């Protein structure tokens, strides 16, 4: 195969990777240990692979790795850890919005992209921005609760 090197900023660190031309971004991420990004459908229809590229949530299962060249990529691994979770992660955990948890990283990334741009996101904003994330466990009720609690406009509401 025709391996080529690309370089992009991954979780605030510039890194180079040897990739195959037809490799998707999720395959690259997962084989390099970023397994928090999940593969649920492989066709861009479930959102569990959502990562942030240049500030916007995208489906890593359909974006080709070469398209990330020179860009800034953020995955769930760069968002928080046990000692410093992102408020969204804390809110999801506390609201009971994490059941099986398989969709959770994608939801956190998509919501983070929105809040980074619009810290006072409204319920309508969340509904529009989260329309690409499937969750089969929660019925979205507790997810909505968690997300709203992270917006400066709706924080504290349930």
């Amino acid at each position: 195969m025709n391996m080529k090197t690309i370089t992009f900023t991954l979780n605030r660190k510039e890194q180079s990777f040897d990739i195959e031309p037809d490799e998707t971004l999720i395959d690259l991420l997962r084989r390099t240990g970023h397994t928090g990004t999940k593969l649920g459908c492989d066709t861009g229809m479930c959102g569990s692979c959502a990562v942030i590229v240049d500030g916007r949530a995208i489906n890593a299962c359909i974006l080709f790795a070469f398209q990330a060249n020179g860009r800034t990529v953020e995955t769930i691994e760069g968002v928080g850890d046990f000692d410093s979770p992102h408020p969204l992660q804390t809110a999801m955990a506390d609201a009971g919005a994490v059941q099986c948890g398989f969709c959770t990283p994608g939801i956190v990334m998509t919501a983070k992209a929105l809040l980074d741009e619009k810290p006072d996101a409204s319920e309508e904003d969340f509904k529009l921005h989260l329309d690409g994330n499937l969750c089969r466990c929660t019925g979205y009720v507790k997810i909505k609760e968690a997300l709203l609690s992270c917006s400066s406009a709706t924080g504290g509401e349930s």
Partner: protein
Amino acid sequence: MNYVDFKSPTQLDEARTLLKELGESASPVAGSTLHVFLKDESPKVAVDILRLGLNGIRLVDGVYHIGATTTVTDMLNHRQHGWVLDRVAEAFVTQPIRNMATMGGSVVRVFPWSDLPVALLALNAELVITGDAERVMSAPEFFATQPFHHLQAGDLLTSVRIPALVEGQGFAYHKERRTTTDFSRCTIAAWLALDDGKIADVRIAVGAAVPMPRRMDAVEDALKGARPGPAAFEKAMQAGIDAPRWKGLHGISDEYARHLASVHIVDVLTKAHEEAKGA
């Protein structure tokens, strides 16, 4: 897709030269959201056209120039007088896809559920193709066949032009779907201009329930010069509803597809008229 190599040109000329040299084996890649629907497994060289600076929305003399790699999210977020594509962009599948998908990718290959082609037909868009010479095609011309057939090796769709909506004009868009992210069962767009209380001009386009998006000429003809209102819309709809061959997709019958169109032609005309009236 079976990409065996990729190129990341940063200049339009550079990209065109590459595409020309590579010919059939080249595959321009922008938002990358459609390859899952394509069956092509022949070896291709991907040419990333996202770095050519073709994105952006500019208003020039009452006409919006939308760069081919403008994302749907950019169209959704754009707020300016006479800009209406945000209404279409909102119906466009999901947030990650809106973030990735581009104007160009959404119109050079038409799928039954495509949103933008239907809107562009109603809005009388012009599509600019940059080849050895620049060509401008009207929307009906462009969508008369699968648009990628218009593109020779080295040609790129570089921008789309849409007249901004002015006072006395209205635009409405409807996509019939069971959930917010469903494939469309029937897509209707209407643009309408009033003059002295009468319909001076009108364009209605349908998609999803027909093999290719198309204008509804007979409905338009029945409306031109008429006094707008429920009865006129209903009558015009009846005059043209049987012109297309309706095709029910995703488990619906042809008859129901036709019925959906009949309801929503009247609905979108009503909405477009409301806007034109300044309501």
